[in-house]
């Protein structure tokens, strides 16, 4: 079973919904170790994305992702704007021209997206950032592809890996981003960026697995 263009649009819409529902949660995580703007910034970005979707609903998946990325870059601000913008633009380049994605295509797109985030933010696994959720999700997805698991099983494992990665940020001492100024005091708090990354991948799992 493949992920269609309409599935992609549904995922992005669901992401906007999930970000809106978790706006205060993300902001409160950010207030603990950052500057208390992550929820509001992501909300502003995805609300603007919703207004752009009708223009690209009949385009290829690559164009849809790139439009999401460009919109996030120009509306989110902070570190989240360039990072999530790069995430979707790289996913878009990987899926350019496609009207549907097999699980291998999604795996390649997610890997390209994650590599884009790593390049832009210069963060490594364990720095207490978004990539702590993204890298395990990519790994799990690739393994699922090798095992030739079904799409829904692959998405479920990827989402679970992102969740574990997100939770694993709690004891970490931040080395990148504003939380790094806290040093040891950043330990004991879950990273807001890893949390929003998990939420997006978990939403992909919930939106696409039902197909």
């Amino acid at each position, binding site marked *: 079973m493949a992920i269609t263009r309409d599935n992609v649009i549904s995922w992005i819409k669901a992401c906007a919904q999930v970000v809106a529902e978790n706006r205060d949660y993300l*902001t409160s995580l950010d*207030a603990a170790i*950052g*500057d*208390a*703007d992550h929820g*509001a*910034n992501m909300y*502003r970005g995805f609300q603007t994305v919703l207004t752009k979707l009708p223009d690209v609903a009949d385009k290829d998946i690559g164009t849809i992702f790139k439009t999401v990325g460009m919109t996030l*870059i*120009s*509306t*989110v*601000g*902070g*570190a*989240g*704007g*360039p*990072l999530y913008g790069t995430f979707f633009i790289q996913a878009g380049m990987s899926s350019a021209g496609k009207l549907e994605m097999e699980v291998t295509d999604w795996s390649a797109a997610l890997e390209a997206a994650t590599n884009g985030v790593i390049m*832009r*933010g210069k963060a490594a696994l364990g720095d207490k950032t978004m990539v702590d959720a993204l890298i395990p999700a990519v790994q799990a997805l690739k393994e699922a592809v090798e095992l030739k698991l079904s799409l829904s099983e692959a998405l479920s494992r990827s989402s679970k890996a992102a969740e574990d990665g997100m939770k694993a940020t709690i004891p970490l*001492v*931040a*080395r*990148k*981003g*504003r939380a*790094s*100024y*806290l*040093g040891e*005091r950043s330990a004991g708090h879950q990273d807001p960026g890893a949390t929003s990354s998990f939420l997006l991948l978990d939403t992909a799992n919930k939106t696409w697995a039902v197909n």
Partner: protein
Amino acid sequence: MKKLINKPEDVVIEELEGVAIAHPDLVKVHYNPNFVVRADAPINGKVGVISGGGSGHEPMHGGFVGYGMLDAACPGAVFTSPTPDQMLEATKAVNGGKGVLHIVKNYTGDIMNFEMAADLAKAEGIEVEAVVTDDDVAVQDSLYTAGRRGVGSTVLAEKVCGAAAEMGRSLKDVADVCRKVKGWGRSMGMALTSCTVPHVGKPTFDLPEDEMEIGIGIHGEPGRTRMKVKSADQIVEMLMEPIIKDIPYKSGDEVLMFVNGMGGTPLVELYIVYRKAHEIATKHGLKVVRNLIGPYITSLEMAGTSITLLKMDEDLKKLWDFPVLTPGLRWGK
């Protein structure tokens, strides 16, 4: 939350509308993307100097747009870096053919957004140099963090770089002035109270009535340590010692001393801080040859102060004294 606002989401735009009405002789406001630009921009043959950052630090940066200082400033949402499209359009609006300097405070988001804007501007054939300010000595272990935060030195860099550009210096020379400030300026701040971001609606951090945070950042980022409130003189000692030791400043050095208010601290207290900071500097053999005292890089309504020392040479003194005419800083013209 008790604030003089209408709706949280309208704070930045309504502030910009106020600025545009108040200072039409000095600045214009461009909307979508948002930036404040000199009324007479672009100035042919002059290097453009722009900065930007989250709102909530007024008068920095928009209040420093005008003759002898910034050519444009890009305001983000409160405490959120602006986006690349803002810096790109501002860069184009101030490009007088001699290139544009980006003065960027060292925060992960600011760096990434300015880098993307600089790449786009270069792709359009505009020469861009970026200098990152990172003067906050409260951040100690730089190898394992995003590096020191850009704070008070940024205001001083904008003043002297703006003067250098006004004098007709090249992009490289103006950027060199900025790098000198980056090398010679150090700061540290403290907070007596938290601040409330309008769209969050509650204080960024909890600080009990009898405690203070030493080494606070300008977005309410926690600092080095939290302790019971002490006297002004004791607090100033805690701020001055790490600053002086850092470069280190040497006996006989001439310095500019900048005592900044975080937004909620009155001038009466800032002068008490200045009095003690001046005494400590003098005791170390430093000669305070220039000063700036007041709320210039604020953190909304936070009560507290930051102290910045900038080592001065003849050129920096000349650039500091050069006329400036902006909404937030004006002399000599």
